[in-house]
């Protein structure tokens, strides 16, 4: 038999990496992209200032970093804040956000759907309904088409 049938390492090569026509996204690494400040959000949650915690957790989204840990941490923090709201307060809280924040909230919600835990899906669904009422289908389209995932 010929020599090259012995090894099958060639099957594990990612051919797309070597394609010279491959589309490369521009990477601009933002500086303040480490994710929301945990300490600040914790403090606001303990005080019971839920609206403040929501605004704080939507700051500095880890959009541009490739650091998966930062994204995981941000996501867990957001889900924690969202779960601590009462159902009746959700609508008002969403109303206090501006357009860009509603889009960002939608991104976090869909990210939260990816890894469901305990009761998170039910809570996220309630938030999804209220955010959809404000952002419209456009906000979901932006979640699907964005190149910078949170």
């Amino acid at each position, binding site marked *: 038999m010929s020599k090259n049938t012995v090894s099958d390492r060639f099957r594990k090569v990612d051919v797309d990496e070597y394609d010279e*026509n491959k*589309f490369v*996204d521009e990477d601009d690494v933002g500086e303040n992209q480490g994710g929301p400040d945990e300490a600040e959000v914790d403090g606001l949650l303990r005080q019971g200032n839920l609206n403040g915690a929501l605004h704080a957790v939507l700051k500095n989204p880890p959009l541009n970093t490739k650091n998966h840990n930062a994204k995981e941490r941000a996501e867990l923090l957001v889900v924690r804040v969202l779960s601590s709201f009462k159902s009746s307060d959700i609508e008002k809280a969403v109303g206090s956000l501006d*357009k860009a924040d509603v*889009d960002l909230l939608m991104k976090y919600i869909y990210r939260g759907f990816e890894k469901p835990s305990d009761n998170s899906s039910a809570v996220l669904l309630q938030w999804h309904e209220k955010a959809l009422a404000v*952002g*419209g*289908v*456009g*906000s979901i*389209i*932006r979640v699907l*088409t*964005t*190149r*910078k995932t949170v």
Partner: protein
Amino acid sequence: MSLCSFGVEPLSCHAWNKDRTQIALSPNNNIVNIFEKKGKEWVKIHELTEHTERITGIDWAPESNRIVTCASDRNAYVWSLKDEVWKPTLVLVRINRAATCVKWSPLENKFALGSGARLISVCYFEEENDWWLSKHIKKPLRSTILSLDWHPNNILLAAGSADFSCRVFSAYIKDIEDKPGPTAWGTKMPFGELMLEHKDSDGCGWVHSVSFSASGDQLAWVAHSSISVADAAKGKEVTHLTTDYLPLLSVLFVGPTEIVAAGHDCCPFQYTYKGPGALEFVKKLDMPKQSSKTTTSAMQHFRNLDKKATEEDSTKLDTLHQNSITQLCIVSGDKAKVEKYSSVGLDGAMVIWEFKEDLEMSSRKGRGLLIIFGVVLMTLFAAFLFSAVEPYHTPRHTEHTLVDSPRISR
């Protein structure tokens, strides 16, 4: 608004002839059908079959009466009408992927073809050898071209592409035309020169459609979740508006500041652009008819409840189009003032819409003018009254003058 259904197949693309009596369209296959309006009906008069794959673009040049078609079979044909028969001429576009869109230039001496081969083919007719040649624009396109539009000066070409950017290129071919004068987009315009490149920072999706304004100074484009306008007259500043609707697939400038866009929401929307930073949504242009509740028998009512758990039996959409609108085209008027435009969609229907300028605004101005006119009239009338009435009120004055006047002789 008038709707005409051309079957159940989606209509991929359409084009009108010069006097809008004939329409060329393709029902999602490799054939172009030309229909002529006879009375109230559209009758098929020609069938153009040369392509082997699905037709992706049709454009009809009004003055020279030529049709250019492009398809997924990597070919484009230019059709000319000879003795009541359309004869095709193959164009050497030299692409190795499907063609996606095609547009005649304003002077109809060349056309641009977008393709999945990440290049734009600008084709022109060479008299010596009696064939169509093409020149390619490759850099810096990174993905499929989804839409094209020509600038009124016949040189600049806008291209929307799947690499999330909208670009303006120069398509100046020195063999067939003179050097262009400077425009707001730039002064040096060799072939393939990039005049504008705009990539959405948030990666708002593919640029589905582009449209220059009538003057050519503004360029509007729609992406997956936004509509944007670049203004060359104001330093190529880009104004961006994110939409709350499903993606828009086609955009058209219908006036100096008015834009109509339509897409997966099956309904045209009107936007207005007044300057950098002033791009806003005006209204939906499809007034959904309030569906009259037909009286259904009690039996029908309960049967529906039983079978479908719903009282109504309607799956129709409120809008005229029952599926996404894929292409908008001007029917009457020109980009500076469009009176009618047409839309085709995935439901196989073609709808002709009338575009009316915002009636409220015009009547408000009219009313204002009327008021001013009325006031002027009133003051004139009052002045006249006073001058006529005065002699009565001061008779002594006149008597005196009469007495003193030299005419009365004692």
